[in-house]
């Protein structure tokens, strides 16, 4: 790309690069800190000596984590949850967003439907009725309890319908002339053309399922059905000292292992770190298409 660049713009580019670099560093520091903790000795961590580099290097924390059956079981539950949950999320997101992206004239009733969905973003019946509904439908203590009640990610639907609207109308018209029905139009035209936004929402869906912990705690009746983040929550949350008998306080003081906690947090973040660059291909490609014309 041989481009003529004004010197002003070149200066801007330089500052911009430095700025974004600093920003990136500021964002990676906490994770680096956790990584450093996980490779340090317990007494160095307790003394607050560890910042971004391990002190008294040791891999004991990792050996500890990988020896833990509960951790590995929870990891597996999370993977199942993501695979099943995200498939359902994406399918429903696309199916709902497409009709809702139509004008009122093309699909009377779309506005009513849109409000029907948006309303649930704002109002909820609260924990107890939610729990009772899930129990009544027999999902309790199964993997389905984690994926069915949250099957429709409304936020993602709304975002995608906005992206669908932005696609050129002519494509759809010409496909229709060729005799394609709405389903064909959706799968053959809308979905392939929206790959950047779909990849974005796919990432959100994966992250959403991977990170959520509260439903796992409430809806699983046995600890071996906890997804990873629910399991982690039980490790990292601090007990309110007011509700702790002194005897239990003693036990907790003894198992309070910050290095092992750090290792578990880090390993739990790894899968997302690996998925992310893979999905990124899609939006970076889009960006290149958009900005290649200099």
């Amino acid at each position, binding site marked *: *790309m041989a481009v003529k660049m*004004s010197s002003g*713009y070149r200066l801007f580019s330089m500052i*911009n*690069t430095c700025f*974004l670099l600093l*920003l*990136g*560093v500021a*964002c*990676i520091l*906490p994770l680096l*800190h956790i990584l450093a903790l996980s490779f340090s000795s317990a007494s160095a961590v307790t003394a607050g000596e560890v*910042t971004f580099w391990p002190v008294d290097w040791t891999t004991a924390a990792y050996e500890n984590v990988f020896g833990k059956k509960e951790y590995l079981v929870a990891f597996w539950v999370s993977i199942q949850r993501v695979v099943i949950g995200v498939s359902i999320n994406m399918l*429903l997101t696309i*199916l709902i967003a497409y*009709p809702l992206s139509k004008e009122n004239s093309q*699909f*009377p009733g779309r*506005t009513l*439907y*849109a409000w029907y969905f*948006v309303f*649930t*973003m*704002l*109002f*909820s019946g*609260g924990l107890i*009725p*939610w729990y009772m*509904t899930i129990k009544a439908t027999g999902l309790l203590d199964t993997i389905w309890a984690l994926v*069915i*009640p949250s*099957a429709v990610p409304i*936020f993602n*639907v*709304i975002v995608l*319908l*906005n992206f669908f*609207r932005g696609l050129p109308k002519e494509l759809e018209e010409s496909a229709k002339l060729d005799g394609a*029905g709405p389903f064909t139009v959706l799968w053959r035209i809308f979905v392939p053309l929206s790959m*950047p*936004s779909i*990849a*974005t929402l796919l990432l*959100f869906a994966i*992250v959403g399922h991977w*990170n959520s912990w509260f439903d796992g705690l409430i809806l699983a009746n046995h600890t071996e059905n906890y997804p990873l983040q629910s399991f982690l929550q039980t490790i990292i*949350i601090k007990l309110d000292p007011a509700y702790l008998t002194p005897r239990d306080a003693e036990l907790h003081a003894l198992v309070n292992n910050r290095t092992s906690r750090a290792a578990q947090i880090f390993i739990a973040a790894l899968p*997302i*770190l690996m998925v*992310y660059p893979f999905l990124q291909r899609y*939006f*970076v490609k*889009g960006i290149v298409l958009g*900005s*290649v*014309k*200099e």
Partner: protein
Amino acid sequence: MVSAIRKYWPFHLMILPGFLLVLVYSYGPMAGLVIAFKKFMPSKGIWGSPWLGMDNFNFVMSLPDTSQVIRNTIIIALMKMVVGLIVPITIAILLNEVRKAAFKRTVQTLIYLPHFLSWIILGGILIDILSPSQGIVNKLLGLFGFDPIFFLGDNRWFRFTLVFSDVWKEFGFSTIVYLAALTSINPVLYEAAEIDGANRWRQTWHVTLPGMLPIIVLLGTLSLGNVLNAGFDQVFNLYSVPVYETGDIIDTYVYRIGIEKAQYGIATAVGLFKSVVSFIFISLSYFLAYRFANYRIF
């Protein structure tokens, strides 16, 4: 009517599965909102519990600090909304100006990282780095001759600390949506602008921003739904007694005075109040956009 349904049946069919799931798992439990007007007794169930009228609401309003926590909540939430909108847009545009794909990808990945750490963990880290005596931030400020600032313990600074740290944790998330929006801008528009002699700044102003506008409006509107959610997890893990005055929000207050413990009626009343306020804000912006710009946000 029948012919209308026949004509549009594929659309209805597409929506049907999601419609039913939402009906069962979102609208079904909403019946439980009646608890807000009842004294909930588990043995009698939702329907059998005695009615209280508005007592639960009145109770909350009669609490001594209610007006202060509502004010704190709105101030913090609004600040977060505004900064949380501007920063990701700016970063998305700046990232868009970077040519080296590898660098762009790396930065993009990095800014998303804090999102994966919960506030319990980040809280501990922030307390470390913001400490006035030992924290790295104050040591840096010291190099420039500033006095140490007690970010987490000083009422003048606490709200800014909340807003700043929240944006730092979450801006990578919205930046990605805006980047996706940028990809959908038709390149032809840039070509045309260039032919018209527009430099990068003008292109950004006249092509990029308008191209992102629908998504900006959408995310802005949806964030209005959080006007009374100032972020329980964050505040809970960062606040302490000295900054209750500026940092205590509805959710932390309700939690601290024990309403969540078992008084579901009151907890539901608080939730319902928040929902209604959010609903009003979102509806308002929806209808304003429709009325004056003839644009449907969703």
